């Protein structure tokens, strides 16, 4: 992706997150520091060392056609809901856009985990003939993109990127490519919903989840007391259009996709450094920007001390110590994996629309080895024009996306 290619703009946001349903509700929660984290209610977590997470309110599912509910996992339902909201927010009539010029590209991290656990339970307790017909279309990672393509009649080049937390940025990189090669509208973004017992236990195996038994103290990225992160569900769906097509239908945009870059950390044991700093550099080059042009960085903010240290060092290497405001509103939602970076992009675009750098709620005492300007003491009304969003996916995926302010204010 480079600055000279056909421009891609974001015209619609559909947030389905622990912080709220809809972009407006989410933004208000972000600014107010209203957390979506709490004790897990979907099952009894008391037997597990991790008991808290970010759940999405079931009211989100009111957007999902009833017919599709038994055919889909919650992760797909959240995306269907997010897509309805995003397309409505974009005020686009998809019937007026040629079918092959619309594509769906989503990020998925772990597929239909809850659906899969239920069907495996049937298989192992009752036998193979008890596995339902919808298992074949609900569990696999492409289910969300397929359902969205069908629901909205989008027949263009569809895609599914599974890069854990980094997927939410790489789908926007792909959306830019598709816009450059002639697509007019790309329904992008991602969601995740792995808050079932098997999903949580699998996540616990990384050792990266916090076992601190207080949702307000468990996820403190860059803090001296950082202990990992909490899991969450949900994400955001994002309508990307070519700038020319958006303009011709009189649509305003939250912002422009200025530049994307992706890289991968060297294998364990390698003497080579992690790639985040060079990936940021490449995203800047792709956008034709200098570090000083960036007004705010939305950090990956893993909350695992070694990850925080590495991320802070990369930010410092590119921008200088404390030279750019860094924020992580995801402390209000937990990490959303396939949906996480997509929600960060939505939050960043809302920040540009509001002219505000939102604060990071939770951390209070920065680790000495993290020389970054983490926005801790309330939002800053600095009118940011360029935001950088960072994401790191489990195993070494590293992505950076630069966003430029558009001409649209906060949504209703």
């Amino acid at each position, binding site marked *: 992706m480079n600055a000279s290619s056909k421009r891609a703009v974001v015209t619609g946001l559909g947030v389905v997150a622990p912080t709220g349903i809809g972009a407006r509700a989410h933004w208000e929660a972000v600014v107010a520091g209203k957390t979506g984290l709490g004790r897990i209610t979907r099952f*009894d977590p008391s*037997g597990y*060392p991790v008991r808290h997470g970010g759940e999405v309110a079931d009211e989100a599912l009111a957007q999902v056609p009833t017919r599709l509910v038994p055919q889909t996992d919650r992760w797909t339902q959240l995306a269907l809901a997010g897509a309805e909201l995003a397309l409505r927010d974009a005020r686009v009539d998809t019937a007026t856009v040629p*079918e092959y010029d619309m594509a769906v590209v989503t990020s*998925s*991290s*772990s*597929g239909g985990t809850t659906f*899969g*656990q239920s*069907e*495996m339970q049937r*298989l*192992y*307790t009752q*036998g*193979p*003939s008890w*596995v*339902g017909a919808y*298992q*074949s*279309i609900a569990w*696999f*990672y*492409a*289910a969300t*993109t397929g*359902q969205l*393509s*069908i629901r909205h009649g*989008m*027949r263009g*080049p*569809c*895609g*599914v*990127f*599974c*890069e*854990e937390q980094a*997927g939410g940025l*790489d789908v926007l990189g792909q959306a830019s*490519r598709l816009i450059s090669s002639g697509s007019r509208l790309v329904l992008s973004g991602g969601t995740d919903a792995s808050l079932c*017992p*098997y*999903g949580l*236990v*699998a*996540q*616990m*195996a990384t050792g990266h989840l916090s076992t601190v038994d207080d949702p307000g103290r468990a996820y403190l990225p860059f803090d001296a007391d950082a202990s990992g992160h909490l899991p969450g569900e949900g994400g955001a769906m994002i309508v990307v259009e070519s700038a020319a097509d958006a303009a011709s239908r009189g649509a305003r945009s939250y912002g422009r996709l200025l530049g994307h870059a992706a*890289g*991968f950390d060297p*294998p*364990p044991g390698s003497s*080579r450094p992690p790639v985040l700093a060079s990936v940021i550099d490449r995203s800047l080059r792709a956008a034709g920007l200098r570090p000083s042009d960036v007004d705010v960085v939305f950090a990956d903010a893993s909350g695992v001390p070694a990850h925080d240290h590495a991320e802070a060092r990369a930010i410092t290497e590119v921008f200088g110590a404390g030279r750019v405001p860094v924020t992580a509103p995801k402390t209000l939602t937990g990490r959303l994996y396939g949906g996480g970076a997509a929600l960060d992009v939505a939050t960043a675009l809302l920040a540009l629309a509001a002219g505000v750098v939102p604060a990071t709620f939770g951390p209070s005492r920065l680790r000495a080895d993290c020389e970054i300007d983490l926005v801790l003491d309330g939002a800053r009304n600095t009118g940011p024009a360029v935001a950088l969003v960072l994401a790191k*996916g*489990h*195993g070494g995926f590293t992505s950076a996306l630069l966003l430029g302010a558009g001409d649209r204010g906060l949504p209703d």
Partner: protein
Amino acid sequence: MTRRAVITGIGVVAPGKPGRIAFWDLLTAGRTATRTISHFDATGFRSRVAAECDFDPAAAGLRPQEIRRTDRAAQFAMVAAREAVADSGLDLASADPAMTAVSLGSAVGCTMALEREYEVLSDGGRHWLVDHEFGVPHLYGHMVPSTLAVEVAWQVAAEGPVALISTGCTSGLDAVGHGAQLIEEGSANVVLAGATDAPISPISSACFDAIKATTPNNDDPVHASRPFDARRDGFVLGEGAAVLVLEELSAARSRGAVIYGEISGFASRSNAFHMTGLKPDGKEMAEAITVALGRARLDPSAVDYVNAHGSGTVQNDRHETAAFKRSLGERAREIPVSSIKSMVGHSLGAIGSLEVAACALALKHQVVPPTANLVHPDPECDLDYVPITARAHRMDTILSVGSGFGGFQSAMLLSRV
């Protein structure tokens, strides 16, 4: 100058013996690798046949820790990646790691390990609140399919873009198409591109049983996969991986690499119709083929062979036959069309990359692999499907197509350079 993506190395783990040479021998002999399922006791399942790989990860060179931490699908991909790099003759140590990328496809990820560990954690399905005390250290790696791309990236120390693309049964074609795109746009100079799947497990078999997509022809496993044959009755589940080394044409030429062919065009479309159903008109697949031809700046008359999706379901075989006629016109009747799924089954996301590997080998050897088991032609499918026996044929350009759950349709063109 326009950057072009070419294939310079091929690695394959396919049903039967591993390796690209064994794969090509199987295909050109018209032998089938389908058999009664041995991976688990399939008693009580509707479909009990599959195309299985005779694969021993240790014998294939993987270390004990690599084996312990990975699912079978990852092991296939790691071994295929090593073979592809060796075949290419590329010295990765002298390549710029930031310009080395991975684009891997998989439909169902690490499903075997995920199911095996579920059985233990739930104590045979008894506990909804699964027991975390029995969680293995790499359990999360089994839950996220991205692990497959991680393992391949580590094999080649890639520091460029790494993608895991999961578009169901078109994953393999889509991943190779994305890899070619990374080279063309200048995001990478070398891409390990391909796909892997190892779905022969109780949960995958049960879910295809539930929708009667797989064959119930359990009495004659060797002849169970019958694309385009009037007596076909569903696909045969397969497994495997193919990984290709893609390079930029001029760089490949300047190092004197042997070039199998160029990815000269790629496109995908969706039918937005049904998660598993296909309309008989083949419209969206035809559109993908037409757009791919346009990108390759080729006319239908340039296509010398079609490697079909040919899964062996009635709706697929008729759907794509219509798509070929719609997009290629008269040319569809003049050229051979065949399905290697008749021999190696349908390995979901992996098969698209195995088919691209087969096309690359077909270009090299100028031989069309046959459609095995095609004895009683379906009158609705009236093209030249190369029954039973491989055929020597002059080819400069090959079309390979894929079709999958979710409504995805992909088309790729490979051309001699």
